[in-house]
């Protein structure tokens, strides 16, 4: 086995994994505050990428305007989803709320390619497609920049949780009733979590859109993001970074090392296998807190 090939796969896998982790950051944010898993996260990433492309293409805006425009739009889009749909589900079984997010995912996946056309759109954020050579190792530049930006965004979300409003959100995550009793507006915190989740999805959507083009397949990021969120424990942000790196490297190695032996594309099931293995051996993930149910 070639050392350089492995090193190349691992390095690219780390960056790809960090880009996946940015999608699952939103899942973790929503799970922490409201205790449900957002299955629309992949579609939100796709929506963010489509909006960025639309602002650039239909209104002729440069990329440094269209990205902030998409981020602001998606923040309010996320708040709107929470306010108009999820808040009505409070008190219903959690399964209902999950199916609602799945319904949103399906609808968005039909709406955006339907309106803007199903062909792959090119989203140029000014990263050259030429690969970068470090010695004998070849690194995909757009993936490297995407990974670094993702890491920076995830770390800044950690910093956000130490700010004043971040502490409010941590209180809501800890105990909703107790936060209510000290005057925290729980529903507002959940709405902000949805907004931030949509923003992180948009960031990931733009980075992935720049790498592989914008089309419906961006919503497939959902399954990788779920794998990362579950492996990381669903309520831990450092867990997302570590699990993202693990999933990215595992996927990259599966493509480069396992595929030639089995003559099939194993890339797509790595995330699924990780989900199942986590649930079998460590259901609450690497950093998750065990949920104790009281009768």
């Amino acid at each position: 086995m070639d050392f350089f090939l492995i090193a190349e796969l691992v390095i690219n896998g780390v960056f790809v994994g960090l880009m996946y982790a940015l999608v699952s950051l939103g899942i973790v944010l929503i799970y922490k505050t409201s205790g449900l898993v957002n299955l629309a996260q992949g579609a939100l990433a796709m929506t963010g990428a489509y909006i960025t492309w639309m602002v650039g293409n239909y209104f002729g805006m440069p990329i440094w305007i269209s990205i902030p425009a998409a981020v602001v739009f998606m923040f309010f889009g996320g708040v709107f989803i929470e306010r108009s749909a999820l808040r009505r589900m409070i008190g219903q079984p959690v399964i209902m709320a999950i199916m609602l997010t799945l319904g949103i995912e399906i609808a968005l996946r039909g709406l955006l390619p339907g309106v803007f056309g199903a062909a792959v759109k090119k989203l140029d954020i000014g990263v050259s497609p030429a690969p970068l050579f470090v010695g004998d190792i070849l690194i995909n530049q757009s993936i490297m920049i995407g990974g670094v930006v993702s890491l920076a965004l995830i770390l800044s979300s950690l910093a956000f949780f130490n700010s004043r409003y971040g502490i409010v959100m941590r209180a809501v995550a800890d105990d909703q009733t107790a936060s209510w009793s000290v005057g925290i507006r729980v529903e507002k915190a959940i709405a902000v979590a949805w907004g931030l989740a949509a923003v992180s999805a948009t960031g990931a959507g733009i980075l992935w859109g720049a790498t592989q083009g914008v089309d419906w397949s961006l919503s497939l990021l959902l399954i990788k993001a779920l794998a990362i969120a579950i492996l990381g424990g669903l309520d831990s942000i450092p867990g997302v970074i570590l699990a993202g790196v693990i999933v990215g490297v595992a996927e990259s190695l599966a493509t480069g090392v396992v595929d030639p032996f089995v003559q099939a594309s194993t890339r797509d099931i790595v995330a699924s296998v990780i989900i199942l293995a986590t649930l079998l051996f460590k259901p609450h993930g690497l950093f998750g807190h065990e949920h104790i149910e009281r009768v």
Partner: protein
Amino acid sequence: MFYRRAGIRHTRYEDERQLFPLTFDRVLIIAILVLLLSAPFWVERLYLVGYMVPWLIWSGAALGLNLLMGGAGQIHLGYGAVIGIGAYTSVHLVRFGVPLELAMIAGGLMSALIGSIFGAAALRVKGIYLAMATLAMQYIVDFFTQTKIISGGSLATLQVPPVSFLGISLKGDVATYYFCFGVTFLIALYMLNIRRTSFGRALAAVREKDYAAQILGVSTYRYKLLAFWVSSFIGGVVGSVLAVAYLRAISPDQFHLELSVQLLAMVIVGGLGSVLGPFLGAALILFAPIVLNNALGAAASAFGTDIPIDLRAHMPLLAYGLMIVLFLLYEPLGLAKIYDNFRKYLLVWPFRHAQK
């Protein structure tokens, strides 16, 4: 007024325990059955094969999924994969020369086995985790059905040889229709009766609060797994019916996540936990996109505007998603509940206040 409960006095326990205690309901059911049984004589062949047969098959599949989701309260996002396992198992057996009757049961058993293995893994955790475990199942099964041994590759199709059921060849449209009708009728009958058995009651207890059921002495794990087993078995049988009676040539992409999403939408739109629901849901989910598409086309030609082909192609997905969202928000128990409200209204009409 239209029909009533007053004056109907059940004097024996058996009378009260029958499936449809009200005469009107019995008459209605018999009328619908007669309509369906005589359908080949008054429905055009094209509609019989293109609309009635898929409606019956998809209703059967939705009934199976509804046992798990509405009956036991366990979410399953990979039911399309379960159907795929049944379809591929039975088609391979039929190609080997095994009679269809046995191949159907074998397909069901294979689906039940694989479905329960994933279920057993997933049932260590619940709720949201179960959703993701079944989603993972969908992708893993997809991967295996795309291998050369099972399907011949991701783009290959597998022809179903001519088959016969109980000595009747399923080549003709009418025989196929009655075959699908029979299978779905049996599944529906099973679902109607299951609620009156200890199994059905145990599932209801598990659905409402699983640890409360455990305290009452209902083995939660056992019944959840049993629900997975039964529901996957039905899925497998329906899968083989789908393959031999409707698709007649199967390829892996017919059993992808889209099928699971379609069935999920049918169950939610139709009504969780009801037997009538899947029939209504299947009709709406299967035909609404067609009707919408035709309406869009007609509107486009009437107003002289052009509707992009992409929009029309993505109309079904958009419609499924919106229907799931709107039903969950405004009528979480689906079309069956709307029918039930209407029926209750008629039961006491014109004395509305007598309802409570």
